[in-house]
């Protein structure tokens, strides 16, 4: 917390909540929240329709259908978080509004927390919108509850990881384009070796690579719980990398908040 946060006579509302309130309005009232949700639900509708109507052709069992739809929902919803968080600081810098923001009586860490939480609202709304699809596909096999809870837990960890990553890159990026590109490149760089692991590598090496990538590991956990019917505690090893990634990247973003400056190269 900076000196600005500690000034007497200010509102008792925590500074990060003030930032969150403003960011939520930006995203949901005058921003891209609703258009993104429209695109997201269209994508989910398309996926669910294909899964439901092509089930016999693709041998998809009901649990597999639910798991597939849930994994798409989680993956895309957390990618929305990257788009929002990668814009958080570099976007203000690009729009030349960062200076006024830095002059406001809000600490830099509060800025990061507020903007990060607002970015997470995209994930939360997207997960809420995926519930009707999961219910439709999973009714009759008592798997909807497991899918929703599992999706929320894995999604929360991945969303925190990506919010931290996006924010971290955004702090050190000169423009929004650079920030989003670098964030997505880092994700692909983690994801690609995990996918390579499925084609031809020794099982032990492949397993390690898959467990290193928080994305692959988290989504595999959902498969184990929903398709294989494992208990939530049975495959907790798969949750190690999502948990570590969520904690480390959120902490790094908070630590790096002290470096927020008008130019990414100058020290604040």
């Amino acid at each position: 917390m900076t000196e600005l946060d500690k000034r007497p006579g200010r509102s008792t509302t925590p500074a990060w909540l003030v930032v969150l309130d403003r960011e939520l309005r930006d995203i949901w009232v005058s921003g891209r929240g609703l258009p993104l949700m429209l695109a997201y639900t269209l994508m989910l509708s398309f996926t669910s329709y294909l899964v439901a109507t092509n089930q016999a052709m693709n041998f998809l069992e009901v649990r597999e259908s639910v798991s597939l739809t849930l994994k798409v929902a989680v993956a895309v919803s957390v990618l929305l978080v990257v788009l929002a968080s990668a814009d958080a600081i570099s976007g203000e810098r690009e729009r030349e509004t960062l200076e006024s923001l830095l002059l406001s009586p809000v600490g830099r860490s509060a800025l990061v927390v507020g903007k990060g939480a607002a970015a997470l609202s995209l994930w939360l709304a997207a997960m809420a919108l995926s519930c009707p699809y999961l219910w439709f596909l999973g009714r009759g096999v008592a798997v909807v509850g497991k899918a929703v809870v599992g999706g929320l837990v894995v999604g929360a960890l991945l969303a925190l990881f990506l919010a931290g990553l996006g924010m971290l890159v955004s702090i050190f990026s000169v423009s929004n384009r650079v920030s989003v590109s670098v964030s997505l490149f880092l994700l692909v760089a983690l994801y690609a070796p995990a996918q390579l692991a499925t084609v031809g590598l020794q099982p032990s090496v492949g397993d390690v690579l898959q467990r290193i990538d928080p994305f692959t590991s988290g989504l595999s956990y959902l498969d184990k719980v929903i398709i294989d019917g494992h208990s939530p505690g049975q495959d907790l090893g798969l949750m190690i990398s999502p948990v570590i990634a969520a904690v480390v990247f959120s902490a790094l973003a908070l630590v790096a908040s002290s470096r927020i400056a008008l130019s990414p190269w100058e020290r604040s």
Partner: protein
Amino acid sequence: MRRLTAAAVLLLSLSATSPMQDARAASSDPDGVSVQVDRTSIDTQLGGRFTFTSTVRNESGETISGLIAHLNVLSSDPGTYVDPEDWSSRRTQYLDPLAPHESATLTWRGQAVNSGPLVLYVAVIDSTHGTVTASPAIELAVRRQPSIDASGILPLAIGVPAAVGLLLALNLLQRRRTSS
């Protein structure tokens, strides 16, 4: 037509040499080879993958070469069409020459494409002597999987985006009103 004839011949040889009740017992030709399978039945669901092994043994006193093992699947329900090509990507295996009383174990992998009662067997063709020996049959029970009732998906697939689109339209309208 040639395929059908071959299948009929193999089926006849199968029913003649391999009672279903004793599938582990080898189906054999005392002057040629015997073929064993490691199970009598497989229970799976539609789309399920299965694996089994067969053992081909040279029962004669001389080395036999040119043995070819072939996996076959057929339905006991005349109304079910079965295309074995869909069941396994590797249905033919060429064996190395077998010395007297030597055996070779072959692994077979497949995926259930049709539901219902089916039969799997392995036929071994001795291309040198022109004989065919079939394994005992494996009873394959393929269950139908619970399916999704897709009839309600369209209202949902249209309804949710429509609701979000409506919210977006109202939001745009309100913003336009506020700005004017």
